[in-house]
């Protein structure tokens, strides 16, 4: 890891930790660990998706009417933004696999940029909801809606809020990995951090792929 390690152990690469036999073993263990984490993330979100499904089952009309207060153009734009960020992320991992440092940094920067665009659009959506009193539970104050719209907006805010938090965390980790890439820490033999932040980022995209039709396109 650190520079002082570099020459201390002669024949094995500085990035190879002592508890692994080979570079390949270390890389596959790192990726496996990431997949375990992603499996946990899926289960973690599944509770919220189940809450969505259960309340939609209880209050189908409420969901149908309340969802009309979400902006389909904004949701669709954000879907395209996230898919594009997933592409730049995948290209960033590819550049890292090929040892292209400048391209890796560039694609990571592009991914961060698209993540910020996503959050800016989300900010405008949220501030519009706040302004109209379309809020969860007892904070709901929008007049003239039938049913239990505060439940829909509770689920909307928790699901999109938690997803947004993942985007925010993603931006932080992407920045960190981008700085490491800039410093030349990665090579075709060692790019696990790029690959793993990529897997995380694609999962954030995957979750949004389900959130968009479920929240914005209720029929």
């Amino acid at each position, binding site marked *: 890891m650190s520079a002082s390690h570099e020459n201390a152990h002669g024949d094995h690469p500085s990035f190879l930790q002592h508890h692994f036999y080979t570079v390949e073993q270390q890389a596959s263990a790192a990726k496996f660990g990431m997949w375990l984490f992603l*499996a946990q993330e899926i289960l973690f979100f599944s509770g919220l998706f189940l809450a969505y499904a259960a309340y939609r089952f209880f209050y189908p009309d409420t969901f149908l009417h309340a969802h009309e207060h979400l902006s389909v153009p904004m949701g669709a734009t954000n879907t395209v933004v996230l898919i594009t960020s997933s592409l730049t992320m995948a290209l960033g991992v590819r550049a890292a*696999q090929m040892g292209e440092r400048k391209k890796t940094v560039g694609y990571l920067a592009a991914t961060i940029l698209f993540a910020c665009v996503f959050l800016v659009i989300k900010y405008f959506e949220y501030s519009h909801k706040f302004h109209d009193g379309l809020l969860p539970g007892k904070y709901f104050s929008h007049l003239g809606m039938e049913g239990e719209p505060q439940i829909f907006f509770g689920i909307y805010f928790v699901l999109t809020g938690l997803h947004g938090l993942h985007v925010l965390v993603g931006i932080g980790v992407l920045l960190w990995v981008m700085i490491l890439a800039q410093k030349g820490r990665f090579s075709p033999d060692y790019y696990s951090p790029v690959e793993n932040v*990529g897997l995380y980022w694609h999962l954030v995209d995957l979750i949004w*792929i389900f959130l968009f039709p479920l929240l914005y396109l209720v029929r």
Partner: protein
Amino acid sequence: MAHQTTHSEAHGHHVLPLKVYFGVYGALLVLTVVTVMVSYMDLGSSAIVVALVVAIVKAAFVALYFMHLRYDDRFNGLVFLSSVLFLMLFFAFTFIDLTSRGYLIPEEGNFTLRNEQKAAQASEAPAEPAAGEAPAHH
């Protein structure tokens, strides 16, 4: 593009050609348009099924190509699918409960869904002036 050679190959990681990434990107964009367009067609109760099928296809593209599961160690795919399996179990058992408890002891009415109550009230209200000759079903 140039397949990064020798050591990449030797270490078993697969550098996919660029056209795979752009092809998947194109497919994801098309499917996003499809899911929006389909939502404006009047599909009734099958709209949710269509929306979910499109979302699952998109998710499969992302997982197989962007996340490399198609080319990766199968064990990582197994981990991913196992979480999906448990997600489905979670949904299945909860919905077995949700869809059956309202009908379990209907005469005691100890669990009536709120929207069912409202629907019942709404359907009873106009029937009330008609001296109630229609047998109420509760």
